[in-house]
């Protein structure tokens, strides 16, 4: 169920990989190359050099950017993800992160402040109490993981569009970015940020959001894959500059919509 990071190296590939590493400064880019270099041994079978592997990756990355645009075009801001009866909720709802469950960060909700930056008029930090005082909504929707599995969960919280309007965010900006207490980070398109089912989740199944599901606040989007739904959100920024994400920088598609 975990997002596993697998590194596979063919014996002969190690030397040429080392060579490639020297030329690559960005750690996430390095990690991506390391993982996809083998291509199931294809690059070795065909006698591809690291340069070839690099250009294949560049081509695949460009197509992934193209797929971002295709998905933005397909995305209907008014189309709702299906909702389900409570009887269909997956129990227990699976834990998922880039780390194991025993490494879940404990955030002090009382001391927690949601920081705002970028193209936002009112950037004063929010407390958990203030968020709880906002009008709340709940949803029973399907969480789809990039790995293929899915699970139905029950989240409650503040519609993100209302929050963005309340703080005077520039709604014509391209991106909304998130930084999290577990060092995770991601960014989404403004259209999805304003989708009626995009929720600043404060509860899970009627209870305060437990640490494993992202206490004190997780951004829940049933229109995006799991890795686009950041947990333990600590800072939100609105920007026109592409800022990627933890998994996105390693090769997962940025739009990640469903």
């Amino acid at each position, binding site marked *: 169920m975990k997002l596993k*990071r*697998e*590194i*596979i190296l063919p014996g002969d590939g190690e030397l040429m990989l080392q060579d490639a590493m020297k030329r690559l400064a960005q750690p996430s880019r390095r990690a*991506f190359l390391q*993982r*996809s*270099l*083998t*291509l*199931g*041994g*294809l690059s070795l079978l065909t006698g591809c050099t690291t340069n070839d592997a690099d250009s294949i990756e560049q*081509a*695949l*990355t460009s*197509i*992934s950017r193209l*797929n971002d645009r295709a*998905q933005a075009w*397909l*995305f*209907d801001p008014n*189309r*709702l*993800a*299906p909702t389900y009866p409570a009887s269909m909720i997956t129990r227990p709802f699976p834990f998922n992160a880039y780390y194991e469950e025993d490494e879940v960060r404990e955030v002090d909700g009382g001391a927690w402040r949601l920081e705002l930056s970028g193209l936002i008029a009112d950037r004063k930090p929010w407390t958990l109490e203030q968020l709880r005082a906002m009008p709340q909504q709940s949803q029973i929707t*399907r969480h*789809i993981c*990039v*790995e*293929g*599995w*899915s699970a139905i969960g029950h989240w409650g919280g503040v519609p993100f569009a209302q929050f963005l309007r309340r703080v005077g965010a520039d709604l014509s900006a391209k991106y909304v970015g998130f930084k999290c207490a577990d060092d995770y980070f991601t960014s989404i398109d403004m259209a999805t940020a304003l989708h009626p089912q995009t929720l600043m989740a404060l509860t899970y199944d009627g209870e305060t959001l437990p640490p494993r599901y992202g206490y004190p606040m997780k951004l829940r989007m*049933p*229109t995006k894959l799991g890795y686009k739904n950041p947990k333990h959100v600590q800072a939100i920024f609105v920007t026109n500059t592409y800022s990627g994400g933890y*998994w996105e920088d*390693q*090769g*997962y*598609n940025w739009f990640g*919509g*469903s």
Partner: protein
Amino acid sequence: MKLSDSRLNDMPAVAGKSKIVHPGWLRCMHWLNAIAVLVLVTSGWRIYNATGFLGFSIPRGITLGGWLGGALQWHFAAMWLLAANGALYLLTNLLSGRLRRQFFPISPKQLLFDLSAALKGKLAHADPRHYNSVQRLAYVFVMLDCLLLLLSGLVLWKSVQFPLLRECLGGYEGARYIHFYAMSALCVFIVVHVVMVALVPRTLLAMLRGH
């Protein structure tokens, strides 16, 4: 009767004059499709391995992408090739009338006859430009199977955006199984297809150089 006899007699002469079995556009599309399918199937296996939801995993050595993110990139790149090439193929075949000419009719009686002839090793291959009933059925099946793969893949990729298609295919989870089984059926086709080509090697030459 005379007329049909003379026609039959003329056939080799006609075939001798224009020996082209597969026109260039068709060969080009066939090999583009082969590349797309190879990439999609092997990267798809790597994606499947992320959960192994049917209780087994595919040997890593025959998968493409190295890790889930890499496999997804290959998969979501090759899907455009399969879709564009497939759409162009179907459109060309429909508009030119080739689809009807080459693949229809498929009669059950002729199918049984050709199948038993094939199993006895007595199926005639006099004119490779004409498909026998077993070939017709197999090729029409694989066209429909690829269509199902594309539609179920669309549900897996964009399940929220295509509600009608999603519900038709049994929801997101239903589409996962359909996508996997349709892939398996495609693999069975490929194995049979390749075995047949190995038995009649000149069909490979025809698909490479046209005659």
